[in-house]
C-alpha cells in the first residue's frame, strides 16, 4: 500500500530523473566531442579531466559545464596553434610553417566567405525589396471594376429615425376658412339664424335671432403628435389637412370624417383622418342657443415640427 502523494509524485520524479539523465548524457557527449576536437596532445587528458568534473555536477549544471568546455576547447585549440606553429617551424623548417600558415589562411578564408555570403544575402534581400516588389506592383494587370445598379431593395429596411425632432403639434380651432368647401349652412362658425317665430295675433315684436356656436375638438381630444405618421416625420413632411366632420349632440361622430382638402401627402391625410376618427366622443357639439345639436363643420389639422 502506497501513499497517494507518493503515487502521484512518482511519475513526475521519474520524468524528472529521465530528463536529468538525458541532460547529463547530452553533456557527456558534448564534452567528448569537444575533447576530440582539442589538440591531440591534450585530447585524452581534457576528456578525462572534464568528465571527472562533470561527474560532480547534476542536471543543468552539467550542461553548463559541457558548454563551457566546448568554449574552452576553442580557446585552448587557438592558443595551442599559436604557440605550436612557431615551435614546429623552428624544428621542421619552412614546410611546417607553410602548413601552419595555410591552416590559418584556410580558417580566415572560411570566415571571409561566410561574411561575404551574409553580405550577399542581405544585398539580395534589399534588392528584391527595393525593386522586385515595386516592379510587381507596377506590372499588375488593371483591375476591372464592374459597377451596376441593383434594384433589389431590402423590404424590411427602415432608415434610422432622425434625432428626436421636437414636435409642436398645432391644433387649429376653426381658423378663418382658407379653402373652398361645400359646407352646409350649419357649418358656419357663428351664424345668426332667423328663427321664425309664430306670429302671435296682435304681437308686433320682431323675431329673436338664434345664437349658434359651432362644434370643434373638445376636452380629452387626442393629441395631434400621436397621429403624426412616423414615415412622414422621417421624410420631413408637414402640412395642413382639412377634414369635414359631422358630430352629434353628444360629441360623437355621426358619420365618418371625410377629406375636404389634402395636404399633398397621403401619409398626413391618413394621419388626420385617424385622428378625427379617434376623437369621436371628445368633440364639442355645436349649440343652438346653448342646446347641443347635430352639426357638420370643417376641421383643420396642422402637422408641423421644428428642426
Amino acid at each position, binding site marked *: 500500500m502506497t501513499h497517494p502523494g507518493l503515487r502521484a509524485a512518482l511519475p513526475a520524479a521519474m520524468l524528472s530523473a529521465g530528463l536529468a539523465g538525458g541532460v547529463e548524457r547530452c553533456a557527456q557527449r558534448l564534452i567528448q566531442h569537444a575533447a576530440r576536437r582539442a589538440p591531440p596532445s591534450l585530447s585524452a587528458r581534457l576528456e578525462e579531466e572534464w568528465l571527472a568534473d562533470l561527474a560532480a555536477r547534476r542536471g543543468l549544471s552539467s550542461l553548463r559545464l559541457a558548454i563551457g568546455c566546448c568554449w574552452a576547447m576553442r580557446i585552448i585549440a587557438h592558443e595551442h596553434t599559436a*604557440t605550436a606553429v612557431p615551435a614546429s617551424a623552428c624544428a621542421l623548417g619552412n614546410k611546417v610553417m607553410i602548413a601552419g600558415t595555410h591552416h590559418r589562411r584556410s580558417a580566415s578564408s572560411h570566415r571571409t566567405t561566410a561574411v561575404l555570403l551574409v553580405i550577399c544575402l542581405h544585398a539580395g534581400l534589399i534588392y528584391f525589396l527595393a525593386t522586385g516588389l515595386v516592379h510587381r506592383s507596377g506590372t499588375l494587370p488593371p483591375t476591372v471594376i464592374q459597377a451596376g445598379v441593383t434594384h433589389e431593395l431590402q423590404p424590411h429596411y427602415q432608415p434610422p429615425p432622425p434625432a428626436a425632432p421636437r414636435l409642436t403639434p398645432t391644433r387649429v380651432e376653426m381658423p378663418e376658412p382658407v379653402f373652398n368647401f361645400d359646407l352646409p349652412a350649419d357649418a358656419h362658425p357663428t351664424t345668426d339664424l332667423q328663427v321664425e317665430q309664430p306670429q302671435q295675433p296682435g304681437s308686433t315684436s320682431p323675431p329673436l335671432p338664434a345664437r349658434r356656436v359651432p362644434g370643434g375638438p373638445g376636452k380629452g381630444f387626442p393629441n395631434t403628435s400621436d397621429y403624426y405618421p412616423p414615415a412622414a416625420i422621417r421624410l420631413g413632411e408637414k402640412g395642413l389637412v382639412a377634414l369635414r366632420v359631422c358630430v352629434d349632440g353628444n360629441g360623437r361622430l355621426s358619420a365618418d370624417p371625410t377629406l375636404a382638402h389634402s395636404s399633398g401627402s397621403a401619409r398626413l391625410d391618413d394621419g388626420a383622418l385617424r385622428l378625427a376618427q379617434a376623437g369621436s366622443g371628445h368633440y364639442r357639439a355645436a349649440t343652438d342657443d346653448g342646446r347641443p345639436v347635430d352639426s357638420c363643420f370643417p376641421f383643420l389639422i396642422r402637422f408641423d415640427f421644428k428642426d
Partner: protein
Amino acid sequence: MRMSLQTLRVLELFLENPSEQLSGADVQKRSRLASGTLYPILLRLESAGWFVSRWETIDPSSAGRPRRRLYRLTAGGLARASAVFASFGRGVLA
C-alpha cells in the same frame, strides 16, 4: 603571461593555501568562474610553469567516481604570483 582579472582570481585562490591541490571543479566552485574561462587559464598557467598538475591517486571503482586532475602552485609560480599581487596590491581583488 597575460594577467586578466580571472587569472588573478585563480591565483589568489591558490595563494590562500599554496600547498593545496585543487581540481578544476573545486576552483570553479570557489572562484565562480565559468568553465569556458577557467580551463584555458589552468592550462595557460600550467604551460607557463606556474602550475603543475597530476592525476588524483584514487581507485575509481572504490571511490565511485572518476579520478580528477589536480593542480597546485609550483615554487616558481608561487614566487611569481606573490610578486604579481605585491605589485597590484591585495586590495585590487577585494
